[in-house]
């Protein structure tokens, strides 16, 4: 590998540098049509006055967003100019936009008054990549403003697009002794992005439904099997308005220069020098992502720009210059380097750097809410992905634990992976035959740190009859099927029976994305507004906890005030439960797993099933803190006692000494785009803790839900000791937080052996919430289960009423 720039470690939010595209002689020849006979796309000047700017730019914006999503954005200067032109939105802007878009346009189709299409060559460099996808714009001029269907495709599109002339299921190549010449021609695959479907006879054919605009753009994706100079015939088809099959209305030979791809090896070293798995985002000078997101096969997932590679594993890249971003979760610095790949330099060397290693203090991270199916995962050819892919991502994010939760979408497929034990699958591919078919030739490579990441398959009660009451996360199950059920619809229609069953088998149960349905107008913490209870978060938890069956609330992925408020109120009533970090990957976010994390304190690193059990019992015992991984409470003691140890018992009121060793890391300057970080105020992020434009964040002492003291911490990654002193007059819970980035589990302080009754107002809030949950959710409980549910809710009302009576503090 030859590095053209020294590896740098940049802020996560820093902008990727854009390297200006240079026009080579080859590009010039392609642009000027040396390889094709023309004609080229006509200039728009004559049409521009007929183009209505608003619908024109609205359609283009969608196309450009889709290109970026596919990993093929416009060069940043062009993208910025297009955004400005869209705001300008007049005929002058349309003319200039057309010139810019021409640089990305493969072909221009013009539709005659009779619906016949004609093809001209666009101005995009016709460069493809061997064994890779490239995306282009397709311009459609439709002066007649017709709304019929057309299509545009390459000749050697491949078996998937061929229409059989008979009804027999047979290979489309027909009966030939020598199929070689036919195969040789099938070098190119073309796909229109998000085609429309047209029913012809009993077949659903892919098509472009014309909108009726005089000019519109679509995206065409091209895959090249070969390298070198190749050409293929492209055809525009017209669907008759009267129905029937489309006919060939024009065709044109288009030449391409297909760049050879090279197998490039990642050499990945962890901070301790061992080989490991990490996350890589590889982009070329135009910010195009490799491998293209348009066509990926697990373990590379289409909805992420990054891929996960172990030391010694490979990626296919054409020769050229790339920026490579490397990460391994929030405890590492983001690495960014520019590399040039050619015959003499087929390697990308990465030396990861940590800014913190909580394991040195005995803390091991886990994400208790990740999915291998549903949401962003694909549903075909399998219902999601297999453990081989999930463990690769867990390793690449530096997670010790990943709880893979099966849920309603993909339930009957994913539940096959449940074993009732933690696993750490060896480095392998879930469907090697698909990798071979995709000719990616990825050979999995084990690393010395592979067994430091574990997966545990368990259950999220989502899409089940009781889901209305809040989604349960069930951990450490021995049995994943509720007794007497065969299908999901047989499960209970409220959650308490499920929690009873979980407890009976020694598992843990709690509520996922606990802030959903709990958002109120107030942003105070605590606040006393009654939430609408109209979502799938904490809801029934407030009743369940009075039955002693709720082990945790799970958050860090929704509104932090909504998440913590209910936790604080329930703890003020004397109930004990953990607050744990989750991602709900890839549903609440598909960015990566481990966005929300729990750190559990253990005597040694968790390995195997016993290691997982120790970790999950640590949650139940309260030996944890949670957060976004950007700040860490490495030590937290109240009068020398850690959370998760015994209660701190005092005979009378007095002063407490709270000590912590805490570290946080912000970049020196705030990110340019704070709006993106603050979007919706959902999820936890240390940037939102930053005090103004400084590099400091407040560490707050929380006593019975109120922040009673704070100390400023320089968020430069260096662990610092902080000490608080606070008086205490009654039994209380004490915790620390950097809001909204991390939160410790509390230390319980018992004075005179009295239970915590910290706030009458909290108890009344909980009591009112029980009524609200019943009002909103009870209509969804089956009649047959309603008597038991009625009794359980009535029990909760009595409990909260009694606690309110026992509280000394209003």
């Amino acid at each position: 590998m030859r590095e053209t720039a020294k590896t740098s470690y940049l802020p996560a939010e820093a902008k990727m540098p854009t390297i200006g595209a240079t026009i080579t002689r080859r590009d010039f020849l392609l642009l000027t049509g040396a390889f094709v006979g023309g004609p080229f796309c006509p200039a728009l000047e004559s049409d521009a006055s007929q183009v209505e700017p608003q619908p024109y730019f609205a359609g283009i914006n969608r196309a450009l967003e889709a290109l970026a999503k596919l990993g093929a954005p416009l060069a940043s200067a062009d993208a910025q100019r297009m955004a400005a032109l869209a705001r300008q939105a007049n005929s002058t802007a349309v003319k200039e936009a057309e010139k810019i878009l021409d640089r990305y346009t493969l072909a221009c189709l013009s539709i005659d008054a009779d619906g016949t299409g004609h093809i001209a060559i666009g101005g995009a460099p016709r460069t493809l990549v061997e064994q890779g996808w490239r995306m282009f714009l397709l311009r459609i001029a439709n002066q007649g403003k017709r709304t019929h269907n057309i299509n545009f495709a390459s000749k050697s599109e491949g078996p998937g697009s061929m229409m059989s002339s008979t009804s027999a299921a047979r290979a489309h190549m027909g009966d030939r002794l020598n199929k070689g010449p036919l195969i040789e021609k099938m070098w190119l695959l073309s796909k229109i992005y998000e085609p429309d479907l047209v029913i012809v006879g009993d077949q659903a054919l892919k098509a472009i439904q014309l909108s009726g605009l005089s000019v519109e753009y679509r995206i065409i994706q091209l895959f090249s099997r070969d390298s070198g100079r190749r050409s293929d015939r492209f055809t525009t088809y017209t669907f008759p308005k009267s129905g029937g099959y489309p006919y060939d209305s024009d065709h044109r030979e288009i030449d391409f220069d297909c760049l050879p791809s090279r197998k490039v090896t990642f050499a990945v070293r962890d901070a301790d020098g061992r080989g490991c798995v990490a996350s890589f985002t590889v982009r070329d000078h135009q910010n195009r992502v490799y491998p293209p997101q348009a066509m990926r096969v697990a373990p590379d997932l289409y909805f992420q720009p990054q891929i996960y590679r172990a030391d010694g594993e490979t990626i296919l890249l054409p020769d050229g210059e790339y920026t490579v971003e490397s990460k391994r979760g929030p405890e590492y610095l983001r690495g960014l380097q520019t590399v040039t790949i050619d015959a003499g330099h087929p390697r990308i060397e990465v030396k990861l750097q940590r800014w913190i290693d909580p394991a040195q203090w005995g803390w091991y991270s886990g994400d208790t809410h990740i999915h291998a199916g549903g949401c962003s995962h694909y549903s075909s050819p399998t219902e999601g992905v297999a453990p081989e892919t999930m463990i690769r991502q867990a390793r690449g994010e530096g997670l010790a634990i990943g709880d893979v939760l099966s849920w309603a979408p993909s339930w009957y497929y994913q539940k096959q992976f449940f074993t009732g034990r933690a696993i750490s699958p060896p480095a392998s591919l879930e469907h090697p035959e698909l990798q071979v078919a995709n000719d990616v030739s990825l050979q999995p490579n084990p690393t010395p740190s592979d067994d430091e990441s574990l997966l545990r398959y368990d259950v999220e009660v989502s899409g089940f009859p009781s889901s209305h009451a809040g989604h349960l996360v069930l951990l450490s199950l021995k049995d994943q099927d509720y007794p007497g059920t065969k299908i999901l619809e047989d499960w209970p229609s409220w959650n308490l029976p499920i929690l009873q069953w979980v407890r009976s088998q020694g598992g843990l149960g709690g509520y996922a994305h606990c802030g959903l349905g709990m958002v109120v107008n107030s942003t105070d913490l605590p606040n006393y507004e009654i939430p609408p209870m109209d979502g799938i978060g904490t809801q029934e938890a407030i009743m369940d906890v009075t039955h002693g069956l709720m082990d945790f609330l799970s958050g860090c992925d929704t509104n932090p005030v909504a998440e913590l408020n209910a936790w604080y109120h329930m703890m003020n009533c004397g109930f004990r439960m953990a607050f744990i970090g989750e991602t709900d990957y890839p549903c609440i976010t598909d960015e990566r797993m481990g966005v929300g994390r729990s750190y559990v304190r253990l005597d040694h690193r968790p390995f195997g099933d016993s290691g997982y059990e120790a970790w999950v019992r640590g949650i139940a015992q309260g030996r944890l803190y949670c957060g976004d991984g950007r700040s860490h409470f490495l030590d937290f003691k109240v009068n020398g006692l850690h959370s998760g140890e015994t209660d701190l018992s005092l005979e009378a009121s007095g002063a407490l000494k709270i000590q912590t060793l805490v570290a946080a890391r912000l970049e020196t300057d705030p990110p340019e785009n704070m709006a993106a970080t603050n979007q919706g105020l959902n999820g936890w992020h240390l940037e939102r803790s930053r005090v103004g434009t400084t590099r400091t964040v407040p560490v707050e002492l929380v006593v019975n839900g109120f922040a009673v003291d704070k100390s400023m911490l320089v968020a430069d990654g260096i662990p610092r000791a902080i000490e608080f002193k606070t008086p205490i007059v009654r039994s209380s819970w004490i915790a620390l937080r950097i809001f909204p980035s991390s939160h410790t589990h509390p230390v319980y302080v018992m004075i005179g052996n009295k239970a915590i009754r910290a706030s009458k107002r909290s108890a009344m809030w909980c009591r009112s919430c029980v009524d609200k949950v019943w009002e909103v959710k009870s209509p969804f409980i089956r009649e047959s289960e309603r008597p038991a549910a009625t009794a359980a809710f009535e029990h909760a009302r009595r409990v909260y009423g009694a606690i309110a009576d026992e509280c000394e503090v209003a």
Partner: protein
Amino acid sequence: MRAVLAISLFILALPTLILAQSDGHRNDHPREAETVSASGPPIKITINPEARVSVVLSGTLPKPAQCGTATDLPVRIVNQGFVTSRLEAVFVGDVPASVSLEFHQSPLKGVREEFRNLRIILTKPNLVDLTIAFRAHNETPDLGGRDRIHFLMNCIEVH
């Protein structure tokens, strides 16, 4: 006699049933799986168990109304998530000031299927490209942009 009639009806309906099934298996992409039909509400919203909202155009849009007059687009809501919060509709991107929308403010009932109307008012006859996103109040939007639809609309100027 009734049995004979039932069997006859079943035989008559069989090709349709088979075709519907085979269509269902042919396309696995959610966007592609929705073909435009001439009847039924033009907008179909699905709220999944995680309260994520996805929407497709699934029918024919009404003909242009007079400018200043509301066009009601019937919306079918399939609620798999028991969601009882408000379902919101907002324009995405630049939309001329001459275009406005109204959508039900009352919360969803949480039942499996509900029908509502999306009301759009255009006051000028220009053709506009509208992108409309739907989301449940205070819930996370869909990650893949499946929470939005787009279509062209205009209105008829009255002199």
